[in-house]
């Protein structure tokens, strides 16, 4: 009967499995902790999710284009170490552009290997994950880097500042999400990414420059990492060599939770935002309830798998696969 209802609900509601899951989840948690839906806590969770969130926006575009990007974790370590280290050496006004350019170069390497040479993205970005971590260690010699004057620098605005009463990381995250949403839904580039990810062969016959499109998706992903690094560096005012360790999986989890297909061709920026927020609220909510960390690991992945299942079920109108 649930199946029938899922079908009867029509495609509009059926496609919003993640939204329904999100609302159900938020109501459940707010019943268990009276702090959960306080304005302070909501602001705090939005702010915390900005770093993973900005990275997830870029990765969503890569995944819609039919590829993966697992290198974002160590790329974040690279970018953060670089911008923090250069901050005290050449000043933030130079450190930021130098770091952005260097990070874009890494994105260009990904884009070249995957877009132009057509190598498998899983292999390339997994390799880059390790190679870039090596690069960070060579650059820093294993030393932590710190910004000495934490209160006097305008660099603090990106991670610690606020505009119109809203923390800057939130403005950057949601603003960027809006821009990417418009690009992906209304502009030719967005349609090309969908086409390349959905059916590479057809896209070539349609005259879409596939190599260039894939190359661009990796540049965008690297740009997002650079922006995330600015927020992270400014928020923490220092960086370890492996600060982004494991972030690639959290990013990928958010993208999957948002319902973007790992096969490429379909996905949505706004739903990735929901995925990011949901993961952040789960971690926050469980700590608010005083649950130990292993429940967070367990619950996070149970929620992801259930959400993905509901999403798939909603799309095909039944809970189980029609093929036995």
């Amino acid at each position: 009967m649930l199946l029938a209802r899922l079908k009867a609900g029509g495609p509009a509601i059926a496609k919003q499995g993640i939204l329904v899951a999100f609302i159900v989840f938020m109501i459940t948690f707010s019943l268990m902790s009276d702090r959960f839906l306080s304005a302070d806590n909501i602001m705090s969770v939005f702010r915390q999710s900005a770093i993973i969130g900005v990275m997830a926006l870029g990765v969503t575009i890569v995944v819609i284009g039919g590829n993966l990007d697992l290198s974002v974790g160590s790329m974040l370590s690279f970018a953060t170490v670089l911008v923090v280290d250069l901050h005290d050496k050449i000043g933030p006004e130079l450190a930021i552009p130098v770091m952005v350019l260097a990070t874009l170069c890494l994105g260009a390497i990904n884009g070249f290997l995957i877009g132009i040479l057509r190598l498998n993205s899983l292999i390339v970005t997994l390799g880059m994950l390790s190679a870039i971590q090596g690069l960070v260690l060579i650059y820093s010699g294993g030393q932590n880097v710190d910004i000495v004057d934490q209160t006097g620098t305008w660099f603090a605005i990106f991670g610690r500042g606020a505009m119109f009463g809203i923390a800057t990381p939130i403005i950057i995250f949601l603003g960027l999400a809006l821009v990417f949403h418009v690009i992906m839904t209304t502009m030719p580039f967005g349609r090309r990414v969908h086409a390349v990810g959905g059916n590479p062969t057809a896209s070539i016959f349609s005259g879409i420059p596939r190599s260039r499109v894939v190359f661009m998706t990796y540049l965008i992903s690297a740009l997002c990492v650079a922006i995330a690094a600015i927020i992270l560096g400014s928020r923490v005012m220092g960086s370890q060599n492996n600060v982004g360790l494991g972030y690639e999986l959290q990013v990928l989890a958010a993208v999957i939770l948002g319902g973007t297909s790992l096969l490429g061709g379909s996905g949505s920026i706004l739903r990735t935002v929901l995925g990011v927020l949901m993961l952040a609220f789960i971690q926050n909510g469980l700590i608010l309830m005083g649950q130990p960390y292993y429940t967070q690991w367990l619950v996070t992945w149970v929620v992801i798998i259930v959400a993905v299942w509901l999403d798939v079920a909603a799309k095909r109108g039944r809970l189980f696969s029609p093929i036995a």
Partner: protein
Amino acid sequence: MTNSMRLLLASCGTLALASAATADTVRIGITQNNVGIDSYQTTYERAFIEAAEANPNVDVIVLDAGGDVARQISQMQDLIQQNVDAIIIWPTDGQALVPAVRNAHREGIPVIVTNSNIAEAGMEFIAAFSGPNNIQQGIYSAEMMCEALDGEGQIVQITGMPGYTTAIERQQGFDDRLAELCPGVTQLDIQPGDWNRERAQRTMETFLTRFDQIDGVYSGDDNMGVGALNAAIAAGRAEGMVFIGATNFAVGYDAMARGEYWGSVYQSPVDDARAALQTALDVLAGEDVPKLNYFDTPKITQENMHEFDRPVF
């Protein structure tokens, strides 16, 4: 066995004895955990090589496993093949390295474990352990917390990566000592910060939302402690809050100098490296070396910090 073969063997034996007698230098091989992954290990390696170079009677073979258990096992085999006089190992995994350590022991090569100890099952095969006493560090932190709060208050704890021996032992030492020494101090919650400053900052932000009154924060290292401090400052609640850490980092030292951070435990990678080499030399000299050799990791607070150099990491 033919006579000629016996002769050959005998002469080989004499030759080996002769070379051992003339060479008064000892060859020590070290296989490290993961140099370069953090400043501590990087500084440790540098200090180890310097200490070895300062001693004309020591020849060292310095290897690094890059955090990889399989690579460390083959490095152990290589060192056994090279027939070094002693092996120092910083285990990538206390359990998985036990067979490799047993092999070296069987070949008559003494093994000295450095920094983090091998699993219980391997203890009988090692000559000695040299490193910090993490339980003692937890105890020191609990004593400082108790003193800073005058025995009364509510605190939260941010631990290292779940499952890591260092994290477990520090928490154990802290929890036990605090309960015993300071029953008036209650722990509101314990959550991991994964040795990551940003993660610790997030955990602390959530604690601040959840609890209206937090008097103290104990973090498994200063890197996380400074993350917690950042969160409290941003929330405008750092005033009067006591921050205690462990493994004093440069950022923790600086925060202490600014009066924002109460105290920590001073653990020098240079002392760690020197202690490992010295323990190996003592073992080779035939001295009666205890199984567990802890180097001193004293308390460092705002009051006595001038006695310590600013940490290099």
